[in-house]
C-alpha cells in the first residue's frame, strides 16, 4: 500500500432540495483495501457510492481517485466500475458479449479481447456459460457476470451496490467468501455498500458506519464490533446490553464507573469523555455474558432468572432478569450444554468480564460535538 489513498473523499455534501443526503463526509480508502459502507436504508451509503461512480454529483466537496479530482468527470471516464444491485445484465447480449461490452471500446483486437473475456469468466467460474443470455442464468450466476464484466476492464476501484442482497442465505454466504477471495486475488480496491452488518464484518478490511448522511465511525470489523463509539452504532452492529453508570473518578483515558449491579468498572473513556459525577451509557455484548452451570465459579457473578428463550439451532438467545437492573440482559449461549432446555423462570448465575464493557456516547452528544468542530 502506498501512502496516498486510492480514494480521498473530503467534505462532501449532497442536497436533494432541502433534504441532506450526505453531510460533511470525509473518508480515505487505501489501495487494495476491501472497504464497506454500512448503514440502514436512507443513510446515504448508496448516494456516496454513486458519487464515487459519477452518477451523483456532490453539492460540495471533492472526491479524488488515485490523486485525481473526479469533479466534472463523467462516469464513463472514471477508473471505477460498478456491480449494480439489479446486476443490470444487458438482456439482448449473451454472457460473453456482456463481459466484452466495455472492452469493445478499447479496440484490443479479437485475440486479446477473447483472452481477457475468457480469463474474466474463468475467474468467476462461468467459463462454460459464455453463450447464455441473462434470463437463462440464476441469481448467483448473474451476479458473477456483473462481476466479470466490471473486473475485465481492470478498474482501479470496484464499486459494489448491495451485490448479495437479492440472493438467498446459503448462496449469499458462498458468494461472500468467493468475493473475498476474488478481491485478494485481483488486489483491486473494493468499495461495498451493504445494510447487512454480518456481511460487512465478514468481508471488509475496514468499515464506515453511516447514519443520516454522516459517517459515524470508521474502523476494522473487530474494532467496530468491540468498541463502537456511540449507542446507535453499537446497536446497529448486533445485540448489545445497555446500562447506565455514574463516573466516580477519571484518571487519564480510564474512567472508574459505578454501576447498579456490575459494581465499579474501569473503562476506556468514550469520545464524549466524562467527568466525575456524569452519567454515561455502558454496553456489553450478549455473548460476553456467560451462563454458569452447577459447580462452576467465576470472579464476577450475578444472579438472575430466565424470562425468555429463543432457539436458533446452534445457539439459544436468553433474556435474563436481574434484580436491580431496568432491562433484562440478553445472552447468547451455544447449545453445547443444554441452554436450550432451560425452563422459563429458572434461577441462574451468570459470569461477566469487567473488561468487556464499553462506554458509549449518546448520539445527540456526538452531534453536538460535530457542530462544535
Amino acid at each position: 500500500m502506498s501512502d496516498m489513498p486510492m480514494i480521498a473523499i473530503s467534505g462532501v455534501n449532497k442536497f436533494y432540495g432541502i433534504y441532506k443526503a450526505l453531510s460533511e463526509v470525509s473518508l480515505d480508502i487505501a489501495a487494495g483495501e476491501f472497504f464497506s459502507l454500512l448503514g440502514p436504508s436512507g443513510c446515504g451509503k448508496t448516494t456516496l457510492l454513486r458519487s464515487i461512480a459519477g452518477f451523483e454529483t456532490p453539492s460540495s466537496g471533492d472526491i479524488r481517485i488515485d490523486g485525481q479530482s473526479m469533479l466534472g468527470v463523467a462516469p464513463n471516464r472514471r477508473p471505477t466500475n460498478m456491480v449494480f444491485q439489479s446486476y443490470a445484465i444487458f438482456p439482448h447480449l449473451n454472457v460473453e458479449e456482456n463481459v466484452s461490452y466495455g472492452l469493445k471500446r478499447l479496440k484490443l483486437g479479437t485475440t486479446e479481447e477473447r483472452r481477457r473475456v475468457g480469463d474474466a469468466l474463468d475467474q468467476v467460474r462461468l467459463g462454460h456459460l459464455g453463450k447464455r443470455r441473462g434470463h437463462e442464468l440464476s441469481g448467483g450466476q448473474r451476479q458473477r457476470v456483473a462481476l466479470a464484466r466490471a473486473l475485465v476492464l481492470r478498474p482501479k476501484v470496484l464499486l459494489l451496490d448491495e451485490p448479495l442482497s437479492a440472493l438467498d442465505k446459503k448462496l449469499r454466504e458462498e458468494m461472500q467468501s468467493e468475493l473475498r477471495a476474488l478481491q485478494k486475488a485481483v488486489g483491486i480496491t473494493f468499495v461495498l455498500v451493504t445494510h447487512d452488518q454480518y456481511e460487512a464484518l465478514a468481508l471488509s478490511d475496514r468499515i464506515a458506519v453511516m447514519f443520516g448522511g454522516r459517517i459515524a465511525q470508521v474502523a476494522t470489523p473487530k474494532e467496530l464490533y468491540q468498541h463502537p463509539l456511540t449507542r446507535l452504532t453499537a446497536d446497529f452492529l448486533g445485540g448489545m446490553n445497555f446500562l447506565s453508570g455514574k463516573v466516580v473518578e477519571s484518571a487519564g483515558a480510564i474512567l472508574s464507573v459505578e454501576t447498579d449491579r456490575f459494581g465499579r468498572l474501569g473503562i476506556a473513556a468514550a469520545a464524549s469523555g466524562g467527568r466525575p459525577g456524569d452519567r454515561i451509557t455502558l454496553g456489553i455484548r450478549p455473548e460476553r455474558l456467560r451462563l454458569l452451570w452447577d459447580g462452576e465459579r467465576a470472579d464476577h457473578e450475578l444472579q438472575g432468572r430466565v424470562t425468555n428463550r429463543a432457539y436458533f439451532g446452534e445457539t439459544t438467545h436468553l433474556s435474563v432478569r436481574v434484580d436491580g437492573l431496568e432491562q433484562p440482559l440478553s445472552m447468547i449461549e451455544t447449545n453445547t450444554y443444554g441452554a436450550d432446555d432451560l425452563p422459563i423462570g429458572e434461577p441462574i448465575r451468570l459470569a461477566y468480564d469487567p473488561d468487556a464493557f464499553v462506554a458509549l456516547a449518546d448520539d445527540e452528544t456526538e452531534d453536538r460535538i460535530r457542530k462544535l468542530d
Partner: protein
Amino acid sequence: MSLLKPSRWRVLPFYMVLYLGFLYLPILLLPVFSFNNAAATRFPLAGFTTKWYASLWGNREMLDAAFNSLVVGICVAVLSTGLAICAARAVTRYRFRGRRAANGLIMAPLFLPEIIVAVSLLMIVLQVGAELSLLTVILGQVVFCLPYSMAVLTAGFDGFDRSLEEASLDLGETAFGTFRRVTLPVVAPAILSSLLVSFTISLDEFLLAFFLSGTEPTLPVYIWGQLRFAAKLPGVLALGSLMLALSICLLVAAEFLRRRTERQLSTGAASHV
C-alpha cells in the same frame, strides 16, 4: 367457485367449443368460399378453384386500393409509433404533473365511438378547407392507432431497467453509444411490435378511411364498394382471406416479439429500487 366443482367440469369444455365456434366459424367460411368454384356463396361447395385469387392480379382498381392501403399503413405505423415512443418514454421514465392525465388522454380514443371521431375529423377537414386524400386518412388513423402503440410501448419501456444505461456508461460507453448499443436494442422488439400492430390496425380500419379518403380508396373501402355487385363477391372473399392471413401473421409476429422482450426484461429488472 361453484363452476370449478368436479361435478360441473363437463359443462365447461362444451361451453368452450360453443364459444370458439361462434367466434371463429364465420371467419373460417371466408377462406372456404374463396376456394369454391361458384359465384354464389352457399353450400354444398362446388369444387376447388384458385381462379378468384388469380382474378385479383388483373384487377387494376383493387391493386391501386392495395397500394393505397400499404402507403397509409406504413405512414400510420411510423407516425403513431414515433409519437408513442416519445409519450411512452416520458410516462414511464419521468414523474411530472399531469402524467396520468396525459396518459389517459392519449388512451381515450380507444373508448370513443369511432364513427363520432370520424365525423368530427371530417368536419374539421372540411372547415379548414383541406382536400380529402390519403393524407387525411393517415392523420385520422394515427389518432386512432396511437393508444395501441402506446399500450405496447409502455409495457416494453416499463420493464426497462434504468441501471442498464448506467451500467453502459459505467463500462466506458458514451451517452450516444449507450443509446445505440443498449437502449435501442433492448426496446427494439417493442418498437417493432408497435409498428406491426399499428400497421395491422390501419390495414383493417374502415370507418375513418371511408369518411376521410376522398377519391383514393383503401382496401376496406374498396371491398365495401364491391359488395354491391354479387358477381364480384368471390373476388372480395379471396381478397378478404389474404388480408386475414396477413393480419394474423403480423399480429402473431408482434405478440411473439412482445413476449420475448418481456421474458428478457423480467429477469434483469426484478429488484431494482
